[in-house]
């Protein structure tokens, strides 16, 4: 088995954060988490629930199409949900407990921007918009973030627009708003962040092979919380994880769409 590439390392790292208690779904352009849900379900978490495109429960696609919101992802599902009545109800009722999103910008508290770069009224770049992240950031207790572009333009001190809430202004902000849980991890192409339990700021949990702590600090546009006990290297994928990902989960390499 050839060594893991960065996309594979990210998928495997995210997959290992999921368990038999994970009840997840996915939104648009979510190739990395879709691969991670499928990988976790095929390896250590057979009871994991994943609703493809947030609608097709227990889908088992033979490959992953160009759109993670499309019916091309639904083969083998045990139920097709209705969005308005099934999906949004189970999301708000906490039957679903896990969601992953990314943004063009992220801040230290895991809030994300996918709306505009530059001032809202006269944007330099008009991005797709927050979609469901503004909603699900409020409804879902276990939030996972990922980024394939770890640089100071993505990881910023202040978002140009807060499309989706992570830990908000930090500390107990989510609790004060009556929102459950919050972001757990942020997996990037350089490292894995988790969140300081008090301040809720990102801190380095591990760095990927060949990446130094200094490189991560340099690529991050905000100050990180200290990592108690040092920073280990991200655990390498096993041969079996790589085989399942390459041969069964994503044989066409759809996840690479996020690494262009």
């Amino acid at each position, binding site marked *: 088995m050839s060594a893991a590439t960065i996309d594979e390392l990210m998928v495997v790292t995210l997959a290992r954060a999921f368990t038999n208690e994970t009840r997840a779904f996915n939104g*648009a352009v979510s190739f990395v988490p879709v691969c991670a849900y499928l990988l976790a379900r095929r390896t250590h978490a057979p009871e994991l629930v994943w609703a493809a495109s947030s609608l097709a429960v227990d889908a088992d696609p033979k490959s992953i199409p160009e759109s993670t919101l499309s019916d091309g992802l639904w083969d083998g599902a045990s139920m097709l949900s*209705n969005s*308005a009545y099934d999906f949004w109800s189970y999301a708000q009722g906490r039957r679903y407990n896990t969601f992953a999103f990314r943004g063009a910008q992220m801040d230290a508290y895991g809030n994300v921007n996918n709306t505009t770069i530059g001032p809202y009224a006269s944007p*330099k770049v*008009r991005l797709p918009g927050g979609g469901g*992240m*503004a909603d699900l950031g409020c*409804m879902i207790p276990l939030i996972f973030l990922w980024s394939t572009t770890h640089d100071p333009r993505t990881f910023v001190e202040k978002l140009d627009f807060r499309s989706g809430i992570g830990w908000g202004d930090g500390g107990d902000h989510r609790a004060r708003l009556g929102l459950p849980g919050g972001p757990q991890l942020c997996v990037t192409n350089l490292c894995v962040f988790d969140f300081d339990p008090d301040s809720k700021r990102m801190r380095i949990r591990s760095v990927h092979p060949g990446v130094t702590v200094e490189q991560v600090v340099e690529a991050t546009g905000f100050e990180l919380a200290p990592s108690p006990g040092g920073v280990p290297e991200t655990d390498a994928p096993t041969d079996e994880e790589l085989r399942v990902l390459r041969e069964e989960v994503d044989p066409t390499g759809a996840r690479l769409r996020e690494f262009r």
Partner: protein
Amino acid sequence: MTITGSVGFESKLRTLEEAAGEVADGATIALGGLSMNAVPMAFVRELARRKVRDLTVVAIVHGMPLEWLVAAGCVRKVVSGLVSLEGFGLAPRFRAAVQSGEVAIEEYSEHTLICRLQAAGYGLPFVPTKAGLGTDMLALHPETTREEVDETTGEAYVECTALPVDVAIVHADAADTRGNVRVDPKLVWMDSELVKAAARVIVTVERILPERAFRAAPERTTYPRFAVDTVVEAPWGAYPTSSYPTYGYDGAFFEAYQRAHADPATAASFWEERIAGPETHAAFLDANGGPETLLRIARRPT
């Protein structure tokens, strides 16, 4: 044109051209489907060809239909939660039009927009939700997404005010001429909320069935005839988006569309040759590969 409906009943069957004529300049329309799926694209193309003006387009999560309506100059404002071509990239015409200020955007999240439509459908002043709390979206339009605190529990929530829609257009598998509609196998998207929020409902369908087909399987009817004003027979009417499970989206069309938009000249010729130019829906399908394309995207016999 004369179409014979069920004997003794008025037929709601209209041509695409006639149905598109029901949308007036300045109207608020809502488009069914989601992203790459089940969008009434044949109808959208006809609207673009008619050069309807000053539309407010409610599009919860969409891409290609907004591209076409913006390109044709039909749109004053987009009311939306997300606009993109997903794995194919950002929506180029929409993005340019918003950045230049040619088209306004009224920005929501997916669920706050659903709540606004539900308020309209249920005849309520607002529907509450916790969605959007702590984001910048609420402050963009405090008059329609009001942050409040519940007196009894002390919990924060958002009041999403009713969003009335003049015309909703949705795509489905089958209808009869009286307006009974079947989404086959099941309605998964949020189209039902558009249908309930709208003063007028236009449904494009893959095929027309006799009314007895609906009476034989009433549990499969999605919208009743009293909720539907106009029916249009438009086979492959969601192309290049999908109509699950009959056919998938045409990824090759989306790729070619994005490639053409690398340069204004190729974008203009793509628009003319493959989208707006063809006189009829059938000619449009032919301009995009005809039967060969349709066989490629077909998922089950039609």
